[in-house]
Structure formats: C-alpha cells, structure tokens
C-alpha cells in the first residue's frame, strides 16, 4: 500500500512540474516605442521614389497654436485620453511610435497566410487563383516569393514617399505636438520634439491599409479594423490631434494611390502565363541550349510559377538583360557532373548543421518567403539602431526595391535558361526540401538574399559581415537541401549583389546615410 501512495505522489508532482514549464510563444517582434536616434528633420528634402515633388499632395494649412479650433482639438484629445479603455491603451503600446514595423509585420503575416500552392483537381488538372473571384478556391492571391517581393516593394515605397512628404510639411508648418502644447497631455512614448502636423502615423496607417487591401483583397475588413485601431491610438497616445491625423490620411491615401497606379501597369498581371505561352518559352530555351526544365510533380503542373515575372517593370535597373548572368554548365558536362556529385554527397552524409541551415532558410510554402525573412532582419536592426519612422521607411523602400528587382532578374534567368532541377537531372535523387515549381538557375534565395544584404550593408555598415554571412548561408541552404546546384547559388549571389548595387547607387544620391 505504501508503495502505491508513493506512486501517486510521484504522479502528482510530475504533473505539476510539467505544467510549470509552459510558456507563452511570441507572435510578433518584441519592441516598444523608443527614442529616435535622430529626428531627421531634413528628410522632407530627400529624393522621392514615385512623386515628383514633396508638395505634390497638398494638405490644408493647419490652424495656428492658440487658435480656438486647435484648443478644441486639444480638449477633445484630453477627453479621449481620459476615457481610454484598456484595449485602447493596449493598442497604444502595440503600435508604438514607429508603427511601420507593425504594418510590415502584418504584411508578412498575410504573405504567410496566402502562401499555399493550389492543389490538383480530381481530374488531374490544376486550378489557378482568379483576382476577380478572390474568395473562390484557390484563394487570391497565392503569395509566392515573386508576389510577396513585389507587394513589399509597393508597401515600402508608398510608406516612404508618404513619410518624406509628411516630414516636409512637419518642418514647413512647424506645429508642435499636443503634449508640448498642453501640459496635461503626456506622450505615451519618448517625447522627442517632432512636429505633429501632419501625423506620420496616419500616413503609415492609411498607405499600408490601402496597399495591403489591394494586394490581399479578402483581408479588407481586417485591415480596415487594424487601421482604425491604429489611427485612434495616435490621439490617445498624446502625439497627435485629429487635424494631424486627417492631414496624414490625405497623404497616405495619395501615396498608396500613386503606388497602386504603377502596380496596375507593371506587367505583373501577365506574369502567370497559359500553357501555350509557357511552352513557347520552354521551346525557345531548347532551341537556344538544348535542355529544358520540367515540373516533376504528380500530376504534373502544366505551367511553372510566373514565367513572365522577369518582364515585370524594375525599380532601379534600366533593363533586365544587363543583369542577366552567364549561362550555366550544360547538363552532362564535367562541371555539371562535379556539381551533381556534390549534391549526392550532401544527401548521403547530411550533417546536423547542414540540415539545420537547409530548414532554417527554407522559407517555402506557408512562410513569409525569403523577402519576408530579410524584412524581419531589417525590422530587428531598425529597432536596434532606433531609427526614426522616415529613416526606417528609407531602409525598407530601398531594400524592398532591390529585393523585387533581384526577383525579376532571377526569374528572367530562370525562364531564359530554363535549367532543370536536380530531381529532374539526377536519377533517383531524393531531397529533404520540396522542389519549387520553377527552373533551377539561378537560385531565388541567393539573389533575393544578396540584394537585401547589399542594401542593408549600405545602411548598417557595422552589420555588413553578418548580412554577407546570412546571404551566403541562405544560398548554400538550397544546395544542402538538394534543390539547387552550387552554381545556381553562387551565380545567384553575385547576380543579387549586382542588382542590389543599383538601389544603393540611387540611395546614395541623398548623401544622408
């Protein structure tokens, strides 16, 4: 009997022990509002990406300090602050004084949510997402790496141009923040002396909402709810009055509109082709090189992913041909055989570290993709360096333009060279990563990563060694995973670096980094 009692005691204590080990898992970047390293008061004069002038969007002249209307707004703000619910206060701490990071995070989450490849129909054919019927399976969009890279560029460029204009008017009108005008109003974040008209937060909220709604139409209501919560938090945080917010909304709306106008004619809508066009692209490669890539899935996908993404309008590279890499070694050549042998060696003797690298960088289906991964790194570095909102937007705009340009260049190479994947060329070859539905040469991970690393190294030279290491690791991860040859990865790295340099050259014109 004694033994049985002991048994029960042991059971209960072990149970208690296990429960105490549970922890909350992080669902967002953990950061709070912070004091900006610099206010970047001259940022209103930085070069815009899409707009011709920093007053192309006009906003009303703000009411003066001491005017009855501004005093009324201050009274209204105090009433809102006094009556703030716990949820509204939580929103203030969630959005912070650099809310672009939150909107970028939302963008990555939606990329992940919509990054699912269409399943075959019962008859072996494949359905495709239809932007005119986004809620019909497969849902629109299928946010694969090209889609996500392009989405992030439009998001970041709209935010950046909007914030440059906001900074211009902040300096021009010089209206102090409510917490400086009324001693009863306290800023929820570090007081920094940044002028508050127009609200930079509202520019970010509305430009982000509108870009993301166009890119993820089924999320319209969710995004509207997030934007409303964000706008409301600006007044409750004590950093804006309602006219600041209204003026910011005007800029945000126009910035998104300008970006979406470009998006509507950039060629993306032709990127996913039909089979006839896809076959003609393949036949051109066979005529040129004597080889072609074939999808290896069952049932076979008749068309690769976005064969004409390589024709999408680039941001900072004049023509895609000028960054096209040299031809890969012919399948069956000595150089090819050496590379194929290397893959077999990895597959047969995979080390723990190689497996970890392959999986860490996989960023495949149901993920934020490699462009998302680099946006995550950028967010972490921005917080570490306490960048102002406008300088944050600058990093993201130049990085994401470089990333999508790298994607366009990579896709141009993929379908120009139409190079087979290892599972097609090496008989019986098995991989630990899924092989994507597009040709091998060059590696998307490598080009995206090298371009991102090039731009981030310009903005954060102290981190350059780390970025280079990450890009190289991302490139090799595909080789360890068995889905790319070493030359796909290495040439992809130099291609991405080359493309990224165009973005850096443009950024350097401001002479502010």
């Amino acid at each position, binding site marked *: 009997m004694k*033994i049985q009692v002991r048994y029960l005691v*042991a059971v209960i204590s072990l149970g208690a022990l296990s429960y105490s080990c549970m922890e909350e898992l*992080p669902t967002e970047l953990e950061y709070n509002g912070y004091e900006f390293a610099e206010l970047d008061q001259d940022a209103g004069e930085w070069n815009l990406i899409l707009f011709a002038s920093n007053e192309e969007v006009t906003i009303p002249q703000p009411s003066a300090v001491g005017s009855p209307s501004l005093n009324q707004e201050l009274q209204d703000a105090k009433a809102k602050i006094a009556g703030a619910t716990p949820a509204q206060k939580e929103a203030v701490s969630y959005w912070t004084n650099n809310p672009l990071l939150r909107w970028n995070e939302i963008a990555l989450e939606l990329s992940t949510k919509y990054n*699912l490849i269409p399943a075959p129909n019962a008859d072996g054919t494949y359905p495709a997402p239809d932007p005119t019927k986004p809620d019909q399976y497969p849902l629109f969009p299928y946010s694969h790496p090209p889609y996500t890279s392009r989405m992030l560029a439009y998001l970041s460029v709209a935010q950046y141009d909007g914030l440059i204009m906001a900074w211009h008017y902040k300096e021009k009108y010089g209206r102090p923040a409510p917490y400086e005008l009324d001693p009863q109003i306290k800023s929820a974040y570090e007081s920094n002396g940044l002028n508050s008209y127009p609200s930079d937060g509202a520019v970010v909220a509305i430009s982000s909402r509108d870009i993301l709604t166009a890119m993820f139409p089924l999320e319209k209501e969710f995004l509207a709810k997030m934007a409303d919560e964000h706008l409301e938090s600006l007044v409750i945080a004590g950093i804006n009055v309602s006219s600041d917010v209204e003026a910011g909304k005007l800029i945000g709306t126009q910035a998104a509109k300008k970006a979406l106008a470009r998006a509507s004619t950039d060629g993306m809508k032709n990127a996913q082709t039909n089979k006839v066009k896809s076959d003609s692209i393949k036949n051109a490669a066979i005529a040129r090189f004597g080889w072609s890539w074939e999808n290896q899935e069952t049932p076979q996908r008749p068309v690769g992913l976005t064969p004409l993404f390589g024709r999408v309008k680039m941001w900072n590279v004049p023509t895609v041909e000028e960054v096209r890499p040299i031809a890969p070694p012919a399948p069956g050549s000595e150089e090819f055989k050496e590379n194929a042998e290397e893959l077999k060696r990895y597959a047969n003797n995979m080390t723990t570290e190689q497996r970890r690298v392959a*999986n*860490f960088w996989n*960023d495949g289906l*149901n993920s*934020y993709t490699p462009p998302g991964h680099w946006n995550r790194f950028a967010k972490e570095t921005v917080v570490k360096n306490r960048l102002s909102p406008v300088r944050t937007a600058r990093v993201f705009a130049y990085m994401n333009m470089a990333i999508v340009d790298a994607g366009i260049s990579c896709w141009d190479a993929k379908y120009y060279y139409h190079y087979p994947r290892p599972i097609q060329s090496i008989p019986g070859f*098995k991989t630990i990563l899924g092989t994507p539905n597009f040709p091998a040469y060059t590696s998307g991970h490598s080009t995206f990563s090298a371009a991102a690393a090039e731009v981030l190294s310009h903005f954060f030279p102290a981190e350059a060694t780390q970025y280079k290491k990450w890009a190289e690791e991302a490139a090799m991860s595909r080789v360890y995973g068995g889905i790319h040859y070493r030359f796909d990865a290495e040439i992809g790295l130099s291609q991405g670096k080359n493309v990224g340099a165009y973005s850096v050259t443009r950024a350097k014109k401001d002479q502010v980094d």
Partner: protein
Amino acid sequence: MNIKLKFLSLLLVGMGISILTIAQTPLDGLMMPKGEICVAVVYEDANWEKYWEGAYLRTNQNVGTFNRKMIMPMIVGGITDKINVIVSLPYVKTSASGGQMAGAEGLQDFSVSLKAQLVDHTMGKGKLKVFSNLSFSTPASNYLSDYLPFSLGFGANELGLRAIGMYELDKGPYLRISGAYLLRGATEAERDFYYEDNAYYTSTMDVPDALQAQASLGSWFFQKRLRVEASLTSLRCATGDDIRIYNSPQPTNKVNFDRVEGFAQYYLKSVKGLGVLAYYNHMFSGRNMGQFSGYGLGLTYQFNAF
C-alpha cells in the same frame, strides 16, 4: 536505497513514449510478479495511401503510399508484484512510394513507464482489477519533428497518466477499459518562424496534449497459453490547428484517430517463457494524420531474474 529512490532514478534514466501504436504492455491488464523480467521485440509495418487534411480524407500522389517500419525492443520488469516497470526504444524508418522527398530513419523516443496495480478484487465469477500507468518519453535522437509526414515522432517529452479497469472471468474472457491523459511539451523546429492560425516568431512549437481511450474485449484459451483480443482505440488532441490545404502537416496539428485492432499472443509449450504475438490494426476515422493500417509481429521471453 529505498523504493522511492529507485523509482525516481528510473524516471530520470528514462523518459519518452512513442505514438505507441503497439505498446500493449503499458495498456494491458497484466502484471509481472516481482523479480520476473520479460524481454520483447516487436516489428511493425504500417502504410497509408490517404491522409486526413483536417477532417478531409485526401490522396497525394507526391507521397503515394506512405510506409513506416518500426522495430521496438522492450523490457518489462516486476519491481514488486504490484509495480512493474516498462522500458522501450523504437527504431523507426519512414518512406514514400511517390514524389522525391527523402524518408527518415533513426531512434525515436525512449520511454519508461511504471504500472501499478491498485485493485485486485474477487467479484462474482471473476476478478476486478484496476491499474494505473505513469509513462514518460523523450526523443532518443535529434530527429526533426518538423518534417512531417516523414518525421519519426513529434519530438517532445510526453508524460502520460493512465487508468485501466478490467473485469476478467475465471473462465478466460475479459473486458478492459482504459483512459489516459498525455501531457506533451514543446518541440524545436529548425525554422524560427511558422504559422499556426497566426504567425509565430520562434522555433518552439507547442505539441498538443491528447486524451487516449481504449476498450478491449478478449479471452484466454488453452490454460492461459493463448490470449486473443479485439480493441478500439481513440486519440483526441486537446488543442492544435488543422493541416492547411495541400500543405505539409506540422507538430502543432490537432491529431485525432479511431482505430480497431486484433491482437493475439501465444506462449509456446516447448520453450518455457517464450511467446509470440501478432496484431493488425486499421484507422477508420481521423484528423490531420495518415490513415494507417498495419501489422505487428513480436517475440517475448519471460524469465525469473531475481
């Protein structure tokens, strides 16, 4: 060195439960007398051609037929007449007939479990027996749990507490019912971002806890040389997400199944202590897992050690 210390040291030495498709012993109504040891080896071969994506049963030609082979050595020892210890360490190999994804193989989870008999009552023409089983398992190799469907296991510690009730007629037939709560810890993925209804910025994945229930009807024949049993087993995860459309499963999934099984064990007359066992099982409903059908064959050898 008292019993309590022995008990604790046993727990510390071991840990781990597999998806214990077979582990009849922790679930059954048998006890080894003090000093007896039973050594067993079980080989299992199971397949699926369809899997449940959420509740939807689908095929995927890029997997084709999925196969899992397992060889599991197991030792059962009688610490006392009323407390037994059970240790097992399966070696698992997975593969698929379709597609180009590599299978996996290696040691799965080391499991140690203690079974105590709490009630042993004569009642009418039979006996009522109640047992409790406490099990702990932990991954025995660095296999990647986030490599489904090929991963060898769910890659987390599991603490299981089971109650077993059994009524056995003196003539041989018995009815056994058991219920268990399986408390599972977290597993580590090799990616540090994943999606489970929303984004997670960590490599830690919460493996859902599960409830397991089993009802068995069996009987002894030939002076207790042959045991034949039919059982129904159900597993329900307490939480977790569904596999997304045409996407890979992940360890956070809510895994459920219902399975029927036929089992037979025979103790040879010719060699004292030697037994053979065989079973077949089939899943008839489930959620977020392959619809396995499989068989197992085993050898058991029982002897008096101390």
